[in-house]
């Protein structure tokens, strides 16, 4: 059984929708719709997990390492890495911080992949 929810909202509803879809709808579909059903189930789960985390909070964990509090954005960080303004010499933990950010993303988008690679959020 899944964890109880804090409130009856989008995340809680999607939890139920995913469960009902996977247990009752998908198995009743013809074989040629199974791939589509698997994608729909996956999309619902990703959406539910994304609602449960705060995107911005994840980004700030990375950005706060590089920029003064609240000053940076992900597009700016991408530009600064490409230009060389931000690199391993200026920010020795950069690669580790990027991996931590990826671990956060993977635990929303593909937790099975994250678990297989030991990518803990």
């Amino acid at each position, binding site marked *: 059984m899944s964890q109880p929810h804090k409130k009856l909202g989008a995340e809680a509803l999607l939890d139920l929708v995913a469960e009902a879809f996977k247990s009752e709808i998908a198995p009743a579909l013809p074989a040629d719709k199974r791939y589509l059903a698997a*994608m729909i189930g996956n999309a619902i789960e990703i959406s539910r997990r994304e609602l449960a985390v705060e995107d911005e909070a994840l980004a700030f964990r990375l950005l706060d390492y590089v920029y003064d509090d609240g000053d940076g954005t992900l597009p700016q960080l*991408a530009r600064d890495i490409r230009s060389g303004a931000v690199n391993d010499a200026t920010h020795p933990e950069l690669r580790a911080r990027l991996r931590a950010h990826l671990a956060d*993303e993977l635990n929303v*988008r593909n937790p099975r992949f994250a678990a297989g690679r030991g*990518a803990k959020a």
Partner: protein
Amino acid sequence: MAAGKDAGGTAATSRAPLEPADFAKLEPWLTQEIGAERVAISNAALLAGGAVQQNWRLSVDVTGGPRGGSHEWVLRTDAAASLDVSLDRTSEFRCIEAAYRAGVKVAEPIAVSSDLALIGRAFAIQALVAGNAQGRRIVRDPALSAFGDALAREIGRELARIHSVRPTNGTLSFLPVPVVNPSRREVATMRKALDGASEPRPALEYILSWLDANAPEPRAITLVHGDFRTGNYMVDNGRLTAVLDWEFCHWGDPREDLGWFIARCWRFGNDDKVAGGIAKLASLLDGYNAEAEIKVAASELLYFEVLAAARWATISLLQGDRFIRGGERSLELALTGLMPPEMEWDALDIIDRLAERGRIT
């Protein structure tokens, strides 16, 4: 940029689907193309798959000329959504012909046309080849342990034959020969693609900077298939029957193909079988080095694995943009667009390992 089979920016166009009756228009053209007295197409059947292009099985009776007799051929149409990073059908066909002449196992190239007056789209005709190309089915074949290593050696030899084709004497002169380091050229192409992408990817930018700074000099410029991976070759009874999908062919560093083949994202979950999810790397390299003029060591390929991961991450991002920005309402494209962190993770993992060994920062 070499890419996945249906990757890249698109210019979506809608066209009426082909009908079997359309192929009667091909008979006089084909008669001339193959030097026959008469060609009759007795049957045309749409083959399964082919979201990007259609594949039709043609039963063809040829009277006279060098191809006289009954044949089963496949007509492959151009993509309904043309892709700005891929070769057009005629250029791809010329690459297949060059590979065929070099002894690579490809479906024999028969004829090609870009004349829209024939069936409304460009197409190529090749011999029908038996086999299965579905990556997941190949890596989950219960008999894989019996044939995997031999198949990987066979694939290694095929790659070496592709890489025996060099840009000399006007061969495939429509393909640009790189004037800069080909790996850096790939990085530049990916950066250009990312400039127009909807989502910033700092990790991918880091990986591209690393690739740019650590690009090895090529020991030769050869033909590079550009998308040689499990899923793009056909297997029948554990033997390779044909190398498919040549639309990302280009001149470049041959190790690029090896790195793409062994990239973790193309092992379909068989992570311990480094060679495309089918066998150990040593088997692939045994086959390759038995045939190749320039031998390759496993240690050289880590860089190209990172390059492959970066390329597939970039392509995935572009796939998602086909929905977000291009208006193609496809759940598959949208889900593919969420995949870049997977390849970025694997690339950074390799970079970390190299850094720990003190080989590269």
